[in-house]
Every structure is written in C-alpha cells, then in structure tokens.
C-alpha cells in the first residue's frame, strides 16, 4: 500500500539546513495498522505529511498502491487525497463555521458528490462515531473528544484506503483518548483501511499491528504489538 524508498527531507531554517528525515525505507501492506513513535522533532509528522502529499520530499520516492508519486502535480495529489487518503489531525482542524455534519460532508462535497449520496454517508458516519445527536453543532460547541470524533468521521467519510492520523489523542484527555483510539481501530478494521498513526503515546501505539521508532529522522526499530494489549487500553 505504502512504500518509501530512500526518503530524505531537509528544511532551511534561517541559514542552517535541518534534516527531518534521512534515508527512510519502509513498506506498509494493505490493511496494516502501523504506528510511529519518537521524541518531538524526530520527523514523525514530516513522514505523514510526505505520505499525504502535503509536503514534498527532498529526495527519494513514495509509492502508493504501486504508483510512484515522484512526478505528480499538485492536482494529482489532490485527487489522491480525495479518493485514497483520509487525515486525522492532532488539532482536529474542523472548519469553524460549519456544523458537525457539514464538516463530515466536506470531503464528499469537495470531490463533487451529490446531495442524496452525501446525506446518506454523513448519517452513516455520524452514527458510527456516535455523534448523530450533535450533528447540528459547530466545533466551538463540541468538546475536544467530540471534535476528534467528527474529524475521524470526516477523514473516513470518502472511504479512503489509507488513514493517516497525526497525534489524534494529543489534544484530549486520556479517557477520551482511549475512546478515540478504539474508534480509529474499529473503523479502520471494519473498513479494511491501512492506518499510519503518529503518536507520542506508547499506549496508543500499542493499538497498532507494529510500531516504528524514529529518532533524528531515521527509522530505528520495528516492534510488533504484544498480544492482548488492544483490549486492555
């Protein structure tokens, strides 16, 4: 599903060059739930941004579903995001002026889906994230956990094959965090989605099939999930 080949990313910060990722090689198969852990600034989020096409690598290659993305245009990346990728952010990034259901409908609207199809899918997603009763509320009227539920529903509304979650529990309390992680796991499993999760939380990481540890922009180690941990978190 996702193959990274000799991926390298560096930024200019003032006059200095900062290396965020160096020579990252990785293959994630369809349906796998993979998490990335590591200290702040180690390059986890950069990795996710590159896979989502939100940022471009300095060198190396990203292959999605067997297709190289090296020479894709901005619009081709947009189409990939519309059809293949869903993203959950730490800060939720819901559109403030829109209600919960409108936020969920947004990716479908953006790709030109029509009213009845959108309504049906939005109803379905609201139900699956348990937010039907809050559908007319705006982000400011929702708690952090509720906002993240809406964000997850939005990320999965267009049935992406790849779900990218960047610190989804970072802005909510631990109790709600557990619910959110369970929700992501359930929805991804039932939808057959491949999930790439970036997290600080080792507990959240334990929900994944395996965990990559990143340090100084490099993949250090791969740890498989310990049996029984998902149920206990």
């Amino acid at each position: 599903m996702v193959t990274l080949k000799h991926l390298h990313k560096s930024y200019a910060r003032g006059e200095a060059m900062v290396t965020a990722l160096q020579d990252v090689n990785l293959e994630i198969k369809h349906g796998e739930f993979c998490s990335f852990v590591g200290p702040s600034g180690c390059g986890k989020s950069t990795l996710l941004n590159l896979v989502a096409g939100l940022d471009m690598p300095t060198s190396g290659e990203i292959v999605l579903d067997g297709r190289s993305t090296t020479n894709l245009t901005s619009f081709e990346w947009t189409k990939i995001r519309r059809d293949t990728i869903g993203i959950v952010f730490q800060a939720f990034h819901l559109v403030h002026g829109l209600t919960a259901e409108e936020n969920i409908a947004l990716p479908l609207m953006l790709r030109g889906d029509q009213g009845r199809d959108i309504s049906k899918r939005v109803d379905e997603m609201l139900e699956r994230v348990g937010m039907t009763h809050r559908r007319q509320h705006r982000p400011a009227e929702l708690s952090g956990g509720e906002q993240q539920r809406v964000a997850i529903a939005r990320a999965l509304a267009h049935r992406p094959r790849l779900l990218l979650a960047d610190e989804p529990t970072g802005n909510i309390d631990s109790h709600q965090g557990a619910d959110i992680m369970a929700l992501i796991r359930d929805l991804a499993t039932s939808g057959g989605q491949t999930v790439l999760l970036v997290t600080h939380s080792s507990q959240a990481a334990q929900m994944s099939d395996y965990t990559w540890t990143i340090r100084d922009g490099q993949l250090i180690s791969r740890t498989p999930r310990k049996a029984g941990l998902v149920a206990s978190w």
Partner: protein
Amino acid sequence: MPTFVKVIARILLSHLRQWPLRTFLTIIGVSLGVSASVAVRTANVDVLRSFEQAVLTVAGPTTLEVSGDETGLDEQILPSVRTVSGVTSASPVILQTAVRMNENQPGQAIQVIGLDLLEEFHTRGFQVNQAATENQLLSMIDPQAVYLGDALATEWKVSVGDHIDLLIGTGHLSCRVAGILRGQSARRSSWERMAVMDIAAAQVAFGMVGKVDRIDLVTDAHVPVEEIGATIRAILPPHMTSERPANRTSQVEQMLRAFRLNLTVLSWVGLLVGMFLIYNTMAFSVAQRRREIGIYRAIGMTQSRVAFLFLVEAGLYGFLGGILGSAAGMALAQELITLLSRTISDLYVPVGTGGSGLLWTDQFWRIVVEGIMIGCVVSMIGAIGPSLDASRTTTVRALAPGDYEASQQVRAGALAVLGLALLVVAGLLSWPGPIGGVPVLGYAATLCLLAGLACLAPIGVAGWRRHRYVGREFGARGVMRAIAVEHAARNPGRNGVTVSAFMVGLAIMIGVLVMVRSFRHTVEIWVTDTVLADLVVAPSMWLRGTEIGTMGRSLPSGWMSILSSVPDVAAVDSYRDVRIEVKGQRVAVVSRDLRLHAQWSRYLVRSGDSSEQLNRAADIDGLLVSEVLANRLEVHEGSTLEVMTPSGPRRFPIVAVFYDYSTDGGKLLMDRALYQSLWHDDLVTVFPVYLRDGTNLDRVRERMTELLSASTDGGLPPLIISNVELRKEILDIFDRTFFLTYVLETIAVVIAMLGIVNTLITSVLERRREFSTLRAIGGSATQIRQLVLWEAAYLGTVGIVLGLIGGGLLSLLLIKVINRQSFGWTIQIIVPIGSLIQAVSLAAVATLVAGYFPARWAARQPIVEGLREE
C-alpha cells in the same frame, strides 16, 4: 527619548513590518484620498491665484478701477475722472484677448493689454528688454508694435524684431515684437505671459476706437480710497462702477463658489472612503493583537496608552500616506489646473491656464504639510473606534482566544437601528433651503445617508447567513460558495466596514452618474427644443468660450445683410450676449429679434406658450428671465426687475421665466431693438440662420464662407456651424465639465477596491489553517481560489445592493437638493439603465479583480505551514 516613546516606536515598527503588504495597501489608500483632496484644493487655489495675480500685476499701483460692462466705456469720461479730488492719475486700459496664428492655424490665446505707454512704460511693474537699435519712443506708439512676455517669447521662439500673427475678433493683425516683457522682481510675474500694446494701437486693433475697457486710477495715499470711489461714482453713468482691483478676484471667487465647493466636497469622498479603509485596517490590527493587548495590560499599560498606541499607528499610516498623497496630489494638480482652467473659461470667465507657479514656490511646503495633516487627521478619526475598542478590552478576555467578532455581531442589530434613524434624519435635512446660498443641510443629509447605509452594512453582511448544506445539490463549486458566504457572514463587523467603504464609493459613483445622466438628458431636451437654427454663424474661435475675450466673441452687425442675401436663407437672427451686474449678480443679457425667434424657434418657458410670451415681451419691452436668475433674485412672471443700463436705471416687466442650462449665472432676454436703444451696442455675438425647407446645407455654408471671408480682414473665416454640430458641441462642453467628476469618483472607487483587497488579504492570512485543512481533506488549489473569490463576490454583492440603494437616494439628494440649491437648475430625473448596468458590472469586475490576487496567493500557500498555524 522617554522610555515609553521608545517602547511605542518599537511596537509600532513591529506592527507595520508584520504584514507589509497590508501596510502598503493602507498607505496607498490613504495617499490616494489625500492626493484627490490636495489636487483639487491646489488646483482651485492655483486657478484663482493665477487670475488674482494677473489682475494685481496688471493693476500695478492702481487703487481704483472704473469699468462698465462688456461693451466697454466711452473714453470721454477720462477727463472728468482726472479732475476728481484725490485722483493722482487716471489711465485708460484695454484688456482683450488675441489668438496667436501659427502657420494659419489658431493657437494659444493670450491677454493683450493696451496701455498709454508714453505715460506708463515705467509705472506698471514690468521691464522691457529692447534692442539697442530700436528707437524706443517711436516703437512704443507704432500701431503694429507689441511687447511680448518673456515666457511666451521663449515658448514661441521669437525675439525682438520678429513678426507674429494675431487673430483679433474676426480680424487679423501682423505685429512686430518691439521688446520682451519681464516682471521687475526675480519672481515669476504674470507679465511674462501677456502682450502689451499702446492704447491707441489696441483701440484700432480691437475695433474700440473711442472706447476703453477700464480706467485705472492711482489715488492720493492720504485720502481714503472709498471716499474717492464714492465721489467718482457720483459723476459716472449709472451702469459704471469704481472698485478696488482686488474686488474682481472676490467677484470671480463668488461666481465660482458653488462650482468649487461641489468639486471640493467630491474630492473629500476619497478621504471618507480612506477613513473606512483605516478603520478596517485598525480593526483587524486590534483583533489580531488581542493577546498582545492583554499582555500590555497585564504588565501595566494603561487603557489610555493602549488607545494611544493604536491611534499613533493610524497616525503613522496617515503620515506616510500624507507624504505620498501630497506628492501625487501635486502631480495630479498639474493636470487638474489645465482641466479646471478650461472648464472655468468655458463656463465662467477667462482664467488663463494656471500660471501662478503656486505649486513650486512658497506654497510647496504648505501643501505638503496640509497633505500630511489631512492624512493624519483622517486616519486618526478612522481609528478612533478600533482604538477605543482596544483600550476597553479586559485583560482576561484578551488573553483568551478572541471572541472579538462575537461582540461585534451583537452590535449589528443596534447599528441597523441607528442606520435607519440616520436615513430618517437625512430625509428631514433635505427639506430646508440653503444657508447663505450654500446647501449645508443638503451636504449634511448626504453624510447622514451614507453613514446610515454604512450602519446597515453589518446586518446586510450577516443577513444571508446560515442554511443547511448537507442534502442539498451543491456540486464542488456550490460548497465553496457556501463556505465563503458562511465565513463572510460570520464576521459582519469587519466585513461590514469593507462593504461600507465599497458601498460609499459605489453609491457616489451611481448617485453622480444618475445626476450627470439626468442633467445631460435635460440639457439634450433643452438643446433639441430650443436650438432650432439650421446654421449658426459665429466668430472663428467662438467655441473656446470666454478664453477668447469679448472682442473675440463679437461680429459686426453688417454681416446680417450679407447673410440674408444668400439664396435659400429664410431668416437671420442677431444674437448678442454681454455680461452685466444685476443686484450684485453677474448676469448675461441676451438680446435678439424676439418676434423672429417666436416665429422660428422657442424658449422652454415655465408657463404659457413660448411664441406668445416672446411676442408680448417685444411688444411691451419686457424681459424673459432664466429660471436660475428668477430663483436667485426672487422674481417671477408678472413682477418687475430694475436693471442698470448705460442709459440709466430701467425697470422691466417680467413676461416669462424660461429654463436655461447654458450658464449658472442667469440670463435676461430682451428684444434687440430695446437692447440697442439702451446699450448702444451694435455688435452681434452670433447669427442664427434659418433655411428654407429642402435646402442643401453644405452649399449654403460654402457660399456664406465665401462671402464672409472677404469681410474678415485676413483673419480666419467665421465658424459656420450646423444645428447638429452645435448640439454636439454643447454636449461635448457638458461632458468636459463633468470629466473631473469622473476622475474624483474613480479615485474613491479605487480606494474602496483597496479596502476589499485589504480585507481579503487579512481574511486569507487569518484562515491559512482553514485553507490548508481544506487542501488536506481533498480541496484543490482551484477550489481555494474559488473560495476567496466567492467571498469577494459575496462582499461585492452586498456592497453593490447597498450601493444601488445609496446611489439612488444620493442622486435624489444631488438633483433635488444640492444641485438645485447650488445652481438653481431643474433637472428631470431619468434612470440610465444601461449606464447603471455598466457601473454595476464594473464594480463586480473590480471586486473580482480585487479578490483575484489574494485568492491566487491563498491557493499557493504551503499546506504544511498552514496546518501549523495557531
């Protein structure tokens, strides 16, 4: 430097540097407003100063001027004036205009002064460079000698001894340059752009033998001028006056008052719109710095200092805008001076082309300082609201994520009520009449109208808010439109200000457009109904208005028989138009054969039948009075009017009042026979000619040109203009008069556009995260562009709707109140649908253009950086 000042300076600089593009746009907006105001003020002052300088320069040591009307005064009066006690000297003066002929083409018009050179060569304040070989005395009185101003000689590349050809009235004069004139000081002098001839030569050249235009008196310094003036008036014929030279400037100033005032007020529109721009910028500035304000308050900055900080920031915008605006204003003024001089010369009096040199002399720094002060004051007034808002912010609230707009929303309802109240006040203010001849309350009503609509803008912006998106057939574009509208409607406070600025610009554009179109339509009807002569025979330079002087606008009455002799000519009228004073008003006395006019043409009389009234006026030696003059002098059909004529005061019955749009000074119409018996003036201004039906107009015109060219003494053949051409010319003059209006309007609309760009840029800056989110969840760069453009379109639409309402109401105020009270004209209102569609389309396109660049910028922003935004 005190620490507080240092702190303020550092904070301000950081503010200006934070969003350089917005800072730049705001400064440009203020500078445009200042430039329009500076340009109009400078041009207004310069044109008048130019006139004043010319008057005072030529007057030299003169303390009193004796003058009559445009027909001149008999030089026989000179000896009796000289004998008046206290009069030291009395000199005859001819002040006329000639047009330089350059390779048989008419060129520049110049003022020619006829003076008694033997007496006054050294007393008038000019000096002459004369070739050593010239015999000075002889050359002075040579009938062909002319002394030419230094600036003119340089421009025309002529020197002493060269010949120049001058067109004088219908005649032609070949002159020899006998010397070059300069002022006596090193400063620029009006003499440099004039020509001087000996009085006798000038009398011959201008066909004024035995007449002079003026007698200039120098009086005893120990006797009050007023006392001598009173004595002289007692011995003068009643239609003559004796006044100080400076009075002429104040008379012209008075004549131009309404015209200049309207222009000045229009130039302030740019400042008004600029004020909205500043309000907008400062409101954003405060909203963006809520947290910063909270920190300042938390560490001990007082409320007043917070307000001061933002006021100074606005003042800084004003200062920089003022400097740029003054420079741009002075550049614009150069163009305006030419345009204004032309318009004033077309419509009122010859004022030259603004040669006072005001811009680059002692007035330079005054203009700059004024420009800066205007910029600062306007900016600081615009910033009062946001600054007070900033100062009132509580620390806790400021440190919390801002709910600034929420508080603004609450006020939208209250503002709407205030807006409606202001509209009612505007209606009430439009009822009373003018104060001192100035439509003060009309202007106040205009201000209330615009302020009222501005107060309605926030609720207008919020009005279309909220509807359910899910389940509706949007399509990809529809959703961007919905988000855009939602976002714009979510911020009624600040977007209301942007919409207000746009609305003010557009309302004024539409209001003035409707007024000008209605006025033009009225003039068209008037021209169509009253200009019925098939041909008009006029002096060759007649279309250059007052610029060509009184003699340049006169024809010999002998041409009547020549014209009548042309085959196919059915009738020839003789139209004479001279300016006199009636009850302190400068009025045109028009005389013509009223019976002939009744038969062939008409006047648009207020009541009754034109032919009947014209015949009756001829029968009873009565007057027809223009509507403007009737209003001003408060006379009407059936009343009488006393007019001072060269034959003494005379009371005339007023037979009818007629609509006239040729001058705002007013007109008296009388029969030519009556005029000639009172004014003893045989000249004619133009000959309206009526042809038999089916006549070949061009053939008649050719024949007339042939016959009349023989009578023009080598000058240009007369202008023989057809009815169609004359109507077109009248409308061209009309359009030229309002060109300046369009320029000032455009400036206001451009500032309003900058307001929209400013708003959208800020909106884009604030919503980078939202845009990046949309990109991350599948939105394309094109959709982001659409989003910003839809927002621009939404704001533009609300602005256009309010602008149309405002423009409609404003046009009523302009036509029914301001114009009526300023000039006294009755204008028939029309709704120029085509022009309105053009104006609205222009506004819509301008809005989208204003939105395009922020939209493009928004679409190009890196997604990852946007997602990191707090």
